[in-house]
């Protein structure tokens, strides 16, 4: 591990620590009224402390100085010198945000000064009840580094207390010691470096060979060590295994020896090759219940997902072959093949789960957004999160950040009323925004709900009319009015605030969500608040697709875009202009787009009695009827990027591989409709 690697490890650890920090602060805030939990404060303190320590090792002075002041304030809180009131909590939250920023700045490598840093440092100092300029005085404290490796057993700093002597050491390893990959011979050898050592092996517990459980630990050692080193040096050697063995170290009078000695090489321990990391006695700063985790490069995971995708396809092809060969239904081969299939599916599901991440970090970012938005809007807002543990594909989480940020800002800016208004409406002055995530029937449901005034529908309608988004005399239902919020170019705030209304409207939110294969809905009750619901697929790697036939080519259309399928009655199909056609569905006319013709597979047809129409909804709530020749199947398909070397293919989103090994193209309905809208589009190029 070189320096850069260690540095990277530090920053990855910082992410965890910052998460613990934000978590802890939220918990302190939550339990504010029922008194403070000392352990939570400790956790928060340790998180800041560890970041400071690591930062010290990498000479990130700015970070160290700030973390130090933060830590001092937390220490005062821990010691009960100051009390956690809302003002202090606000300060602590802001400091935690600042710390996150500093870590990010440090990670990016530029030690650029942050503008608020100094005043925040002073605020912290003031809160801790210190003199303002006292903050930096005990700078000598910064130097320490918990990252320094404890494995240096050479013992160069042993000048202190050279109270060496003779020690009797009784060492009885447990089964777990071997299971963790420790080797007693190494321990004994290191111990022998401390001085002259006599070792006696105690085999008394060793049973007959027949009764021997080779994984159990049967051997004990009795050691007499003559050393110049202090006793704690002995303890240090056994530090990593102290939970895994019984160890007794006692000073010995000068003249005692072991009667019977088996000196020299420590005997080989019962063979145990179970590899495992050395367990640290306690995991500082992480708080309780450490989870065993491995950090893996995302590329590796993606490669694994790809390969497993192949495995599933290969399995499908194999089944097809067996089918084609006419293997009898009751042949054992069929049974084995079924096992193979379920195994392959299971592997695929498990591998997909690796990419899934808890949505918690995203929610924590939103908590910050809400705080900042509330401060700048002069409102009091509390963000409550639910279902933080809900796991969603990493890419989905990443791409969800922007729309969610916008929605939270919107909720603070437009949803929650000012404290005075809330008070006069008989509500608590502090507005409540609930951000929740949950799994619902194979999809992820994310909701942003505020308890604000709800959508001011007359005002929305008025704005839409003034902007020409709806005709002057249009009569819209409540739902239709709410939908106006998603129209491009709509912004209700009469004064464009710093928060929302910066040109990015809810229409962008909707299109982002839809590009992820999701949908956004809105419900609002005047006086009681507004709820936005986002429904998303669990992963972007697979998609529910309808397998269709377009002029002999097998193609896939995402099920999420299809509203219904129908066989048109010739009387419902009407020509419109030259070549344009519409189909009447329950009183409204929907344009027809002939997939085969738009893709250039065949000439346009004019009768659709042999075709199937797929009613799809594209971006702007527009309906469109796609003409396909037949529907084969509906299934999950693995999405493959399509890189042909000459850019995007209009109307095609990606590709997938079907059970027979052939590639099927996945249709992008929106792109297709756009193509179809221009009557002599690229289709005529061929």
């Amino acid at each position, binding site marked *: 591990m070189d320096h850069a690697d260690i540095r990277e490890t530090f920053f990855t650890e910082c992410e965890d620590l910052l998460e613990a920090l934000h978590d802890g602060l939220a918990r302190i805030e939550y339990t504010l009224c029922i008194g403070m939990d000392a352990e939570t404060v400790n956790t928060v303190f340790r998180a800041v402390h560890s970041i400071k320590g690591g930062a010290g090792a990498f000479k990130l002075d700015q970070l160290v100085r700030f973390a130090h002041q933060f830590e001092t304030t937390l220490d005062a809180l821990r010691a009960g010198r100051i009390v956690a009131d809302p003002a202090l909590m606000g300060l602590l939250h802001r400091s935690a945000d600042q710390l996150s920023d500093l870590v990010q700045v440090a990670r990016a490598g530029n030690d650029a000064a942050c503008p608020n840093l100094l005043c925040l440092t002073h605020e912290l100092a003031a809160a801790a009840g210190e003199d303002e300029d006292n903050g930096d005085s005990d700078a000598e404290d910064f130097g320490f580094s918990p990252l320094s490796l404890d494995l240096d057993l050479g013992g160069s700093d042993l000048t202190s207390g050279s109270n060496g002597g003779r020690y009797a050491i009784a060492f009885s390893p447990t089964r777990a010691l071997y299971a963790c990959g420790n080797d007693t011979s190494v321990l004994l050898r290191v111990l022998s470096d401390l001085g002259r050592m006599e070792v006696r092996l105690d085999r008394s517990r060793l049973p007959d060979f027949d009764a021997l459980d080779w994984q159990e630990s049967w051997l004990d050692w009795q050691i007499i060590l003559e050393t110049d080193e202090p006793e704690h040096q002995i303890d240090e050697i056994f530090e990593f295994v102290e939970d895994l063995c019984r160890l007794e170290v006692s000073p010995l009078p000068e003249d005692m020896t072991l009667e019977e000695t088996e000196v020299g090489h420590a005997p080989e321990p019962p063979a145990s090759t179970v590899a495992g990391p050395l367990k640290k006695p306690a995991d500082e700063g992480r708080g309780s219940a450490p989870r065993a985790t491995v950090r893996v490069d995302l590329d590796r995971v993606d490669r694994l997902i*790809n*390969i497993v*995708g*192949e495995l599933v*396809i290969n399995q499908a092809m194999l089944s097809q072959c067996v089918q084609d060969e006419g293997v009898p239904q009751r042949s054992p081969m069929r049974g084995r093949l079924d096992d193979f299939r379920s195994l392959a599916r299971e592997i695929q599901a498990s591998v997909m789960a690796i990419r899934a991440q808890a949505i918690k970090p995203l929610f924590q970012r939103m908590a910050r957004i809400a705080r900042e938005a509330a401060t700048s809007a002069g409102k009091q807002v509390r963000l409550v999160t639910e279902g933080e543990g809900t796991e969603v594909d990493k890419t989905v989480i990443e791409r969800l950040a922007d729309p969610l940020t916008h929605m939270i800002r919107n909720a603070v800016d437009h949803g929650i009323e000012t404290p005075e208004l809330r008070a006069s409406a008989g509500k608590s002055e502090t507005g409540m925004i609930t951000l929740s995530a949950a799994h619902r029937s194979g999809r992820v449901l994310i909701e942003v709900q505020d308890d604000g005034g709800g959508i001011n529908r007359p005002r929305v309608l008025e704005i839409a009319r003034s902007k020409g988004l709806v005709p002057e005399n249009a009569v819209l239902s409540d739902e239709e009015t709410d939908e106006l919020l998603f129209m491009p170019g709509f912004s209700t705030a009469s004064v464009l605030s710093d928060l929302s209304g910066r040109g990015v409207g809810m229409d962008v939110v909707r299109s982002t969500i839809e590009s992820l294969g999701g949908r956004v809905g809105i419900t609002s009750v005047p006086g009681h608040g507004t709820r936005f619901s986002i429904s998303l697929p669990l992963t972007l790697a697979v998609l529910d697709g309808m397998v269709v036939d377009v002029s002999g*080519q*097998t193609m896939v259309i995402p099920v999420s875009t299809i509203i219904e399928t129908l066989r048109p009655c010739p009387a419902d199909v009407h020509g419109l202009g030259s070549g344009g056609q519409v189909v009447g569905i329950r009183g409204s006319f929907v344009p027809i787009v002939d997939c085969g013709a*738009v*893709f*250039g*597979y065949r000439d346009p047809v004019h009768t659709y009695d042999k075709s199937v129409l797929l009613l799809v909804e594209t971006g702007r709530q527009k309906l469109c009827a796609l003409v396909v020749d037949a529907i084969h199947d509906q299934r999950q398909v693995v999405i*493959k*990027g*399509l*890189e*042909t*070397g*000459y*850019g*995007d*293919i*209009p*109307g*095609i989103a990606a*590709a997938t*591989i079907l059970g027979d*090994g*052939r*590639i*099927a*193209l996945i249709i992008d309905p929106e792109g297709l409709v756009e193509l179809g809208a221009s009557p002599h589009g*690229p*289709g005529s*190029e*061929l």
Partner: protein
Amino acid sequence: MQASATEADLREVVAFRIGSQEFCIDIRAVREIRGWTPTTILPHAPAYVIGVINLRGLVVPIINLAARLAVGAPEPDARHVVIITVVDDQLIGLLVDAVSDILTVSPSAVQPTPQVASEATQAFVRGVIMIDARMLRLLDLAGVRPSPRPAT
């Protein structure tokens, strides 16, 4: 030292046939050679891109070299061969009539392309190599690749 120098001087090429003409490409660009399998047709693709195939999970576009080089383009069938090549980290399959052999040539044997009228020849042939009485046209793989088109 000398050994490596000669190694660098010499290179191996894969020779293949399209119609009556023989071509070759640097063997280092060749990933594998496989039989023709039906492709999935890409909409709005240039005529010489005959579709994509599944190469163990990768979506690989196939170019009909005969059409690309304008030397007559028969309908591909099972007798045709696809050479999977890597051009600038991108996999591209070349549909050819048959692969004939692998030859070792020295760069000095590569002669400049004789001036002929055909535009396609000028664009895609980097030079010609004489071996015995055969003339191998050294293909410029980067030129054969479909040219990027502006996103619509």
